[in-house]
């Protein structure tokens, strides 16, 4: 929640900024280690354009990659489950990222994070 309401009718907006110094890098480190080609993404969106899940849900691999890199993982918890691992994105990616393995690694990372295993 970004808005805290107090009983006097005042509200404090928390900063929307990505705080790169306090953000969680564990997921990024885990995904990069398991799938080093993750680093090659240049955010062209080819994966999302061709993604079957992305046509009907909020799943967006290009955005997910950016979020992981920035340590913004809260939004991923639900999103990562929407990928059906069909691998069409893999056929499109101009940087040769093993996109399917990135999703699998991200899902694992979030599971491990919740169990304090990262």
């Amino acid at each position: 929640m970004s808005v805290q309401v107090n009983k006097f009718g005042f509200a404090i907006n928390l900063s929307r900024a990505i705080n790169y110094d306090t953000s969680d890098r564990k997921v990024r480190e885990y995904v990069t280690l398991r799938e080093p080609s993750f680093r090659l993404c240049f955010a062209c969106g080819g994966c999302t354009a061709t993604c079957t899940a992305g046509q009907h849900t909020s799943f967006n691999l290009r955005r997910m990659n950016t979020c992981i890199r920035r340590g913004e993982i809260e939004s991923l918890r639900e999103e990562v489950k929407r990928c059906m691992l069909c691998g069409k994105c893999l056929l499109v990616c101009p940087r040769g990222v093993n996109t399917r393995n990135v999703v699998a690694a991200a899902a694992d990372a979030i599971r491990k994070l919740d169990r304090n295993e990262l």
Partner: protein
Amino acid sequence: MKEPAKHVIVAGGGVAGMEAAGSLAEMGLRVTLIEKGDDPGGNLLKWHALFPDRRPAEEVRKYLRRRIDQENINVITRTSVEKIRHHGHEVIVSLSGGTEEKADAVIIATGFDIFDAHRKEEYGYGIYDNVITSADLEEMFNRERVVKADGSVPARMGFIHCVGSRDEKVNNNHCSKVCCVTAVKQAIEVRKVIPSCEVFCFYMDMRMFGPYYEELYRESQEVHNINFIRGKVSEASVNINNRLVVKVEDTLAGRPLKMELDIMVLMVGMEMSETGAHLAEASGLKLGVNKFLYPADHHFGTNRSSMKGVFYAGACTAPMNITDTISHSRSAVAETARYLKIR
């Protein structure tokens, strides 16, 4: 007694080769310019107008033709250079057809080939009628007829950037540099010829590296209402209305996007020319990861090869625009002259 003029062979009669031949001849050297096509001119022969000022390509062609119209230049067409080897103080050049020529130095100016768009099958070039390349569009401008395959006027056109460039799937990781500004130039030209036609550019990054390129980009938005969508097109198909449909992510909106188009223009990139690649392989000249000729030094030796008396000019070393090609060609001539004096 006066020493006979030194002889230099220029392999390739495109922009780089013609400029090199002209500059060498001006210095009093004897030049043989070898061109594989019917006429010198190279890829420039296909072009209608040039970025950034949209001047007619014919003006530059005329300049280059005048350049090689000198007594001491011998132009040999329909011939390619197959192999080069250094022998004593000479460079021996094997030509197609089996003959050999001797020279005191050689400038390689074999240039580039345009990426064969058939290789990006998902874009449907050669499958769907209204998928064309940037080179095809130049020919349409030449014929003064920008129309769909059925002869009708397009209501919407899309330019797809980076076709055959920055794409591991076709084994080209390099950027071809000139396609971004070419797309902007052609988009403006389309709007001028068909003011009713909507124009969209689908880009990954806009690389406006040269003088007045950024200004042209700005003009395209400000004056000509060109639309830019940031995303790589993943595929094209044809729908029931017989219109092309592209699938792309609008990465700035963060959502997948579909769009109908009447004509889709593929901005084809540059690859090492086939002739150049054969020559390099036969002669043992080193290629870079981009498969273009790898020069001796990237900062102060871009015209030098690993072979004595052999120099590089123009887009055989990397994708290059005409301005840079002419400069690079002149510096190749300077390197050659220096070599001939001190060798």
